[in-house]
């Protein structure tokens, strides 16, 4: 396998694997937030704000994978 095809496969794996964990985490967080809102509807505003912030933190983990994938595709140091 030459370096180009290896890089493409590696980029796909990087973003795909990096999406698993944050996906689970975001699902958990959203579920808990919905449960919280159902229990205490008056706290909805506060819960929504915190939820959005934490979702963006989890999102950034996938984004790190994306950055690695982009580096492999466009700025590959080995190709």
């Amino acid at each position, binding site marked *: 396998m030459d370096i*180009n095809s290896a890089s493409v496969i590696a980029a796909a794996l990087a973003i795909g694997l990096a999406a698993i964990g944050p996906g689970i985490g975001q699902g958990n967080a959203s579920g808990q937030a919905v449960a919280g809102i159902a229990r205490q509807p008056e706290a909805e505003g506060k819960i929504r704000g915190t939820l959005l912030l934490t979702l963006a933190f989890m999102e950034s983990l996938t984004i790190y994978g994306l950055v690695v994938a982009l580096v492999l595709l466009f700025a590959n140091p080995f190709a």
Partner: protein
Amino acid sequence: MEILDGLTVINSFTLAELEVGEHFLWKIGNFSVHGQVLITSWLVIGLLVLASVAASQNIQRIPSGIQNFMEYALEFIRDLAKSQLGEKEYRPWVPFIGTLFLFIFVSNWGGALVPWKLIELPSGELAAPTNDINTTVALALLTSLAYFYAGLSKKGLGYFKGYVEPIPILLPIKVLEDFTKPLSLSFRLFGNIVADELVVGVFVLLVPLFVPLPLMALGLFTSAIQALIFATLAGAYIHEALEGHGEEEHG
């Protein structure tokens, strides 16, 4: 770049070209700088300066128009700083955190809302300044400097005692943290903005009309959140440096 050549061949509209890793280079002495980033960041800075000058001329007791809007923005930033740094210490850091928030927010939205693609450059293309890793790394390093300054100016050299405070075993991790903080700040912002622009670019490439619109709206939303997160984290790091590592005293 060769990998995406297949994609650009399909595309018959020059409206939607994906150009990643191509820059409009300017030579200044021995350095080559990314001209497209400088142009857009000057525009963003100019817009912010114009808005603040327009808002602070002819100040009325009962605000209206631009003054009203800028007062709302200032109040938002002050609340942001206050929620992170606490009532006692937030005031001197409002300008720094506010500048970070406004610059990132305006450049993210400016990159998404202004049709930069209509302006032709010799190479590369105009986009949000935060689309370039150099901008985000500069902002992140400024944040690092700011929290070191905050800690050192408040506690003097005693700031470094915070590295060994609960137990000295954690010293390597705390030193490592000083490097991972700017790294994660810069990569988070850069990655999110590039991801937005790439996703929108790919969708415009495939379906040029209407279909990319919801994604563009999502992009606006995430880029606003990213500006908020950058400012919030800068505030949190400064607060941590002011309060000493480990101990959590909010309020």
